[in-house]
């Protein structure tokens, strides 16, 4: 519950800072009226799977106003240059779901400035065969929203440079392009996909030094937002 609240809160930060007109206009339509019961029940099934069989580091938050819209966060997997980063994906299902695939947009791009992966463009475009945006095994109605997010998670891997088809035959502009690419992604992950914590810390600085009053009466000590900020800046300095 607490995490859910946190998730909603943080996704609001993402949404208010990132989502473009796409979702604003969507919200105005009442999409639900046009959806056949068979499609609606299937969509619910896809969503419920995230709560009945959750997968580590993938979270889904269905939009309260539109059954065709969901917000997902994938946390960068350990031992990858994406480690610990929060990547926010805006998901829109077509009216004929599951016959056609969802459209997915990466919102964590520092306003279209960062290309996080050969498959994840700076404009937010997600290139994956399961989304019919890349060659290979195409979307089929047997696939699920969970399957889509697992596919996206799998491109956030240890050596994203190699996701580029034919990467090995590209002209070598540096001696070790795999490592070089990882260094850049690591930096950008910390700068873009983690730094939003800075906002959270800054907006809570006023609590610093105050006693934490636990409703269950457990001893908690004091809020230490200033110290968190120092540590955060140290970390940031290390990679900037």
């Amino acid at each position, binding site marked *: 519950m607490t995490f859910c609240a946190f998730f909603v809160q943080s996704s609001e930060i993402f949404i208010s800072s990132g989502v473009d007109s796409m979702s604003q206009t969507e919200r105005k339509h009442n999409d639900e009226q046009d959806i*056949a*019961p*068979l*499609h609606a*029940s*299937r969509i619910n*099934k896809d969503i419920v*799977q995230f709560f009945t069989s959750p997968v580590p580091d993938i979270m889904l938050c269905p939009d309260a106003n539109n059954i065709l819209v969901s917000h997902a966060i994938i946390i960068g997997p350990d031992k990858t240059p994406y480690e610990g980063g929060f990547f926010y994906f805006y998901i829109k299902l077509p009216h*004929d779901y*599951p*016959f*056609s695939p969802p459209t997915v947009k990466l919102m964590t791009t520092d306003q*279209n400035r960062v*290309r996080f992966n*050969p*498959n994840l*463009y*700076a*404009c*937010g*475009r997600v*290139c994956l065969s399961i989304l*019919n*945006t890349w060659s*290979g*095994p*195409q*979307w*089929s*109605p*047997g*696939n*699920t929203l969970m*399957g889509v997010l697992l596919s996206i998670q799998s491109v956030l891997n240890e050596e994203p440079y190699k996701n*580029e*088809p034919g990467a090995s035959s590209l002209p070598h502009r540096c001696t070790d392009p795999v490592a070089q690419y990882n260094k850049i992604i690591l930096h950008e992950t910390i700068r873009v996909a983690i730094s939003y914590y800075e906002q959270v810390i800054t907006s809570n600085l006023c609590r610093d030094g105050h006693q934490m009053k636990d409703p269950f009466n457990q001893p908690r000590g004091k809020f230490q937002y200033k110290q968190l900020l120092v540590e955060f800046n140290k970390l940031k300095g290390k990679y900037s």
Partner: protein
Amino acid sequence: MDENTQSDANNDELILQQQRQIEKEISETTPLVSDKQTISTLNSEYNDDAVYCSKVKNLAEKYISLRKTRPDGNCFFRAFAYGYLEYLVKNKDDYEKFRDLVQKAKDKLVKQGFPELTLEDFHDTFMDVIDRVAPSENNEENLQELHKLFNEQGYSDYIVVFLRLMTSGQLQEEADFFFNFIEGDCTIQEFCHQEVEPMYKESDHIHIIAICKALNANVRVEYMDRADGDKVMAHDFPEVNKPNVFLLYRPGHYDILYPK
């Protein structure tokens, strides 16, 4: 992957919009499966084409009528399912065997690795349709029900999905055999992911052979194209059996035929 990204995304959006518009126009003007029409209605499509007109004439010698299906890439599976169920409604013994086959198909596919979560919806819907048209005293009513269900997008498309998955299952089960029929250097599994399981993908001989085998069906396809000659060419799948489903093939499209 090109970094020309923003325009890529916009183009995708435009193409998608245009596609939706075309689909909408087709769905407003063409039913998923039409009422029976006489063979001669085909003439209106080929007014000045001597080759086609003589072939329509030849077709009319063997068949009394046809049902047109919506040209959406799913036409083979929709026409096949409709034609086969029409036959089964009138043939109780085959119906029972067929029902049993489909009933068991879900577990078989799950064992092959298809995800149960999504499979069961398609399977349940297909079973529901099969049960709702079960042979009875009043077959006329069953056939009307069949026609109604096949023209409800939800039911109709769910049937198509399940048949696509069964086709994929059959192809993968006999991958060593079917491998010889596919072009390019992809595996049967890749072929299924790209050409069989996705909706709106057109069907070829290999799809027909596989689904006929999976469901014990015998299909005759009458080929009508611009090739020389004044006769349509019949091909049976499989070749040795008496057909119980009759389809008309014109390049890129299948309709249902009714023999005299």
